[in-house]
């Protein structure tokens, strides 16, 4: 049995992503990694992977894949109507996939980015500078530094083992996002009181210039501080005010340094919701402080951790998932003999 999935249709821009290479920003390499870290981590958790196992990230339209081996998969993030061998499958839960199956993900109906995780360690392309994440701009990582193409083979591991299989699901409420919280940026004080207030009272809109590097926002232009700045290191979620007064939120593939003033930084707990906002969607920036931001992120991670602990504690309670290699084969034999 060959251990890979074959790309039948690649989707719009499907890339291999993990948690990126933050330790190489010192050399000017973008951090990269999954745009929606919450959904990415959830997908890995569902298939019993390490949190940094590589998955496929798709945007707008997902890929169609044929499995050359057995696997367990999980689909998270943007809402899709995926099918496995033409049968609808659910998101946010583990799905057992037999060799030869065809997974069709199709368009993303809500949100932008979706994640497909494979059990037994995820996508196992060769890591580049400590990460499997693809950075398209520098042609690095993933599959030769590019998005998937028809005919590609994506290396994964054959897998027939999944403890507490039937309980591996989670309900994610979809919610209308109208507020994005931020903390004061390193250059907050450079902006006038009036501009600071304007930034919080205006309605902003995701513009058509949105990609893995950042989202440019439409809205009334802010007054830009006259003083020019020396470049500084960037942080995921920084909101820069460009020379024409419009904000750009810096995301996974951002440049490692930037010279525009940073008015604020989107809090991590809201970043997942932010990257899933579609072009044209409107929202307001709401100021918060670091302690609240930390508390919110801890709460968000707790959802994931508690769920995992529940599964782990329940791994010997019926129904037990296939926990031995032969379990599936045995169950197939039993089914065949019925």
């Amino acid at each position, binding site marked *: 049995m060959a251990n890979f999935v074959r790309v039948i249709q690649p989707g719009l821009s499907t890339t291999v992503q993990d948690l990126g290479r933050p330790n190489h920003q010192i050399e000017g390499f973008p951090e990269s990694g999954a745009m929606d870290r919450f959904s990415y981590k959830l997908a890995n958790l569902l298939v019993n992977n390490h949190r940094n196992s590589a998955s496929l990230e798709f945007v707008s339209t997902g890929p169609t894949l044929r499995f050359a081996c057995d696997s367990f998969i999980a689909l998270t993030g943007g809402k899709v109507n995926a099918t496995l061998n033409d049968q609808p499958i659910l998101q946010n839960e583990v799905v057992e996939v037999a060799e030869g199956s065809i997974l069709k993900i199709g368009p993303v109906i809500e949100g932008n980015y979706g994640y497909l995780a494979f059990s037994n360690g995820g996508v196992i392309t060769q890591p580049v500078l400590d990460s499997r994440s693809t950075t398209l701009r*520098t042609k*690095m990582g993933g599959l030769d*530094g590019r998005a998937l193409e028809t005919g590609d083979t994506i290396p994964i591991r054959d897998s027939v083992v999944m403890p507490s299989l039937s309980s591996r699901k989670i309900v994610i409420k979809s919610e209308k996002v109208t507020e994005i919280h931020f903390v004061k940026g390193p250059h907050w004080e450079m902006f006038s009181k009036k501009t600071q207030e304007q930034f919080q009272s205006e309605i902003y809109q995701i513009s058509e210039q949105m990609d893995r590097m950042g989202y440019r926002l439409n809205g009334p232009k802010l007054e830009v501080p006259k003083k020019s700045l020396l470049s*500084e290191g960037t942080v995921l979620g920084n909101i820069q005010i460009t020379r024409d007064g419009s904000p750009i939120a810096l995301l996974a593939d951002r440049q490692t340094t930037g010279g525009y003033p940073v008015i604020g930084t989107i809090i*991590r707990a809201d970043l997942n919701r932010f990257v899933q906002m579609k072009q044209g969607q409107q929202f307001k920036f709401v100021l918060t402080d670091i302690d609240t931001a930390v508390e919110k992120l801890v709460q968000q991670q707790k959802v994931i951790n508690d769920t995992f602990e529940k599964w782990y504690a329940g791994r010997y309670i019926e129904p037990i998932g296939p926990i031995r290699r032969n379990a599936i084969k045995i169950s197939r034999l039993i089914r065949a003999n019925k």
Partner: protein
Amino acid sequence: MMDYSYFQVNEQSLEVEFPEQINVEENKLIQNIARELIEQKAVGVTGVIPAYHTLTVNFDFDLTSFKELVNQIDEIIVNSNELTKTGRSIIELPVFYSPKYGPDLEDVAKFASISVEELIKLHSGTDYFIYMMGFLPGFAYMGSVPEKIAMPRLEVPRKSIAPGSVGIAGAQTGMYPVESPGGWRILGRTPVKLYDPARPQLKYRSGDYIRFVPIDAEEYRRIQQLDAADKYSLKVIKEGDIDNG
């Protein structure tokens, strides 16, 4: 003792800020803090970005905290007198200065009211300190270019600059590791591949010095061929290294 302060950028990032200036001593201290955090394998530090006058530190708040890191960095700074005495690495980078590869060579010479030969001598006669990497993988922000030839960047940036191009922007100088749009005044080109996606490890890092060595067309071709066959390595000079450890 240099003045500095801390700023927490988000839940898991902080910035150490020094006075806003382009200053080798200040930047060396920043580079040293960055290297110490990496070499000590400081618990919970996921990545650092040294820049001209700032150091960005990303961390995992399950493993460390803003307060903990402030204490650690304070301690590194207190002990930094020892660190800044370590020697310097100078990396020699061959450059073919010619109008063909350096479309702004003649303009910059005119700006400085000197001959092209004198310009080449001036630009290659200084060892440039790498203050930071950014913009692109391996794009080194270096200084300082002799005042006389420090021509400001182009009014309208070029749509495409060839990889290996060496240019100046005011007092800054640097090389483009990959093809990119850009507004720096291009004086020449190095035959050495500065960035290869297949082998992305870089040949220099911030805190190093770069010395441009003028070469001719023949040498350019020779090095280019050697480099393509993976048989060329840059000359590195270690100077005044008093760190015997």
